[in-house]
């Protein structure tokens, strides 16, 4: 069992036990547990003085650097919960996140001033070792003063794509995360000899697993440069020089790494130079067959390759499935294995009744990972966090929208989505959100997006635009329309929601049920 109920308490225990151990490192910098504890204490003191306490949301605007981790820990130590505000997001998106979350204070790294300065009245700046307040930042009208954090306090609010056009914040508590590590301990045996890489943005919850997997156990967290996702060569080199032991990847990202590692004429890389003991997949469906070149060369024992299914609403991971060489003979089904011990996964039919083995249904998740719900959205929370049929004996289940079936031996197999939601490169994309943005472009009568497979794991978001009639004449109208649409997505949406390809169509195909036929579009 981890020594505490809250993330920062456990971290503090680790810092006291081994203050000189390296907690976080980047290519040019390393910070010890003791130093990280001290710096985050200073920030926590400032935030507490400003009135931050339990369940107060605090924006966190930082690139992938030490400041992000200091900021996160400082916010949690003050009792508050962090809301990541990605400095690379367009101004529109940043202001939406700030207003929807209504964070009274933002903690920001000084180097994000270009994004955040002027966007919020109350900013606590982190500048290396210095902390300063934006002029005019005033204390909150605070209730009770200092208090002890509890496991049921919020730890973070992470936004995910929303089907109605606006992203929604998922509220996750300390205990949701702490129990994830306690419950999976028997499988992974994380400890202070582990080195984790932070590959994912703090705006996505895969980062929660990466950061706390290191810091709750006294391990080292290597902050990879953000450019690593466009350079598998750099990733391979850093995995080797930093001696990373735990690597977390979406199958798409790992596929890029495989393509480089097993490029023609270059297939004799020796894993002996690497310290990898675990590669953990998440974020999207895994077809084990893509791992064939790796497994033929390196086997399935070291590192162990593990597929985990999960959703932000149920705290990163729900299920666990080590992938073995035997899985390479499968037919492309995505085995997701068995639930984390304190979770129950039900496969239910349209009436909410359990289906038989081998029959597809919708996955519902109950247990310690189920989060508090959506921020300021009681109706949506009630739709997705449900009571369920009495016969299940559950008080609260998260309705995943994911299709799956259970094999007679108890194993779960992932089958896809029940609804229109897309998963592209691990990113969760609600078509409605992108379509609403595109339909604001002058000259666009209607817009639909779908994923399209360009071959060999190259899956792209494609926008289909139906032009308004008036735009049918003149020079290069189609190119102008596409250019306008592309510029608009750049101004409004984060990168991962921007379409890659645009097609001008005269009409949108419709299914017999009268719904947009996205499958027909993607062909």
């Amino acid at each position: 069992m981890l020594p505490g109920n809250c993330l920062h308490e456990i971290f503090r225990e680790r810092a006291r036990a081994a203050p000189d151990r390296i907690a976080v490192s980047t290519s040019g910098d390393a910070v010890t547990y003791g130093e990280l504890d001290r710096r985050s204490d200073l920030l926590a003191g400032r935030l507490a003085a400003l009135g931050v306490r339990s369940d107060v949301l605090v924006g966190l605007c930082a690139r992938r650097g030490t400041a992000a981790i200091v900021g996160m820990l400082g916010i949690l130590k003050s009792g508050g919960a962090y809301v990541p505000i990605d400095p690379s997001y367009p101004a529109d998106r940043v202001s939406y996140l700030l207003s929807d979350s209504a964070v009274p204070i933002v903690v920001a790294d000084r180097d994000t001033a270009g994004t955040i300065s002027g966007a919020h009245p109350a900013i606590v700046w982190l500048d290396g070792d210095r902390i300063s307040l934006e002029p005019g930042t005033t204390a909150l009208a605070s209730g009770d003063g200092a208090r002890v954090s509890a496991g049921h306090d919020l730890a973070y609010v992470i936004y995910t794509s929303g089907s109605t056009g606006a992203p929604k914040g998922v509220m996750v508590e300390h205990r949701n995360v702490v129990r994830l590590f306690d419950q999976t301990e028997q499988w992974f045996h994380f400890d202070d000899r582990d080195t984790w890489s932070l590959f994912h943005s703090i705006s996505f919850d895969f980062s929660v697993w990466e950061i706390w997997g290191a810091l709750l156990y006294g391990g080292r967290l290597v902050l990879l440069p953000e450019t690593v996702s466009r350079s598998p060569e750099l990733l391979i080199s850093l995995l080797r020089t930093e001696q990373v032991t735990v690597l977390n990847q979406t199958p798409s990202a790992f596929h890029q790494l495989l393509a480089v590692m097993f490029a023609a004429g270059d297939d004799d890389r020796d894993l002996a130079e690497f310290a990898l003991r675990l590669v953990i997949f998440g974020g999207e469906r895994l077809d084990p067959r893509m791992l064939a070149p790796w497994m033929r060369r390196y086997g399935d024992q070291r590192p162990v390759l593990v597929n985990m299914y999960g959703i932000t609403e149920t705290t990163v991971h729900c299920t666990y499935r080590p992938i073995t060489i035997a899985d390479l003979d499968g037919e492309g089904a995505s085995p997701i294995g068995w639930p984390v011990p304190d979770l129950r996964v039900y496969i239910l039919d349209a009436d909410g009744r359990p289906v038989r083995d081998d029959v597809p249904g919708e996955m519902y998740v109950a247990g310690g990972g189920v989060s508090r719900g959506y921020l300021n959205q009681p109706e949506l929370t009630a739709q997705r966090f449900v009571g369920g049929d009495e016969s299940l004996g559950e008080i609260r289940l998260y309705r995943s929208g994911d299709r799956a079936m259970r094999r007679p031996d108890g194993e779960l197999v992932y089958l896809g989505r029940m609804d229109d939601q897309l998963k592209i490169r691990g990113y969760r994309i609600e078509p409605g959100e992108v379509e609403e943005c595109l339909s604001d472009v002058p000259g666009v009568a209607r817009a639909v997006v779908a994923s399209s497979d360009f071959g060999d794991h190259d899956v792209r978001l494609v926008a289909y635009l139906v032009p308004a009639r008036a735009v049918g004449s003149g020079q290069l109208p189609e190119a102008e329309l596409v250019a306008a649409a592309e510029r608009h997505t750049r101004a409004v949406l984060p990168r991962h929601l921007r379409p890659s390809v645009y097609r001008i169509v005269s009409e949108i195909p419709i299914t017999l049920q009268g719904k947009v036929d996205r499958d027909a579009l993607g062909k």
Partner: protein
Amino acid sequence: MTAAQRTDVPASDVRQSIIGIVQAVLDREVIDPAVDLFDQGVPSLVFLRILARINEKYDIAVDVATLEEASIDELSALVQAQLGGDGQAQQGGC
């Protein structure tokens, strides 16, 4: 102005052919050479494919680590520099 930035701007041969490669790999005509490709909806896998084509065409190994911004203009400058310098020595790649 964006439409005019397609293919009809005067540009060096390298820049012009990189524009062509991006258009072909991305399957999209409209692309702004001055803007980071990642900002214009180019996923990292597509970017790697673009680089592979550039490397193949010029028989070089573009080092993206030195790229400040992944725009066509910056890429063109980098390729030109490598061609003018020790580009040939780096052939084969890693």
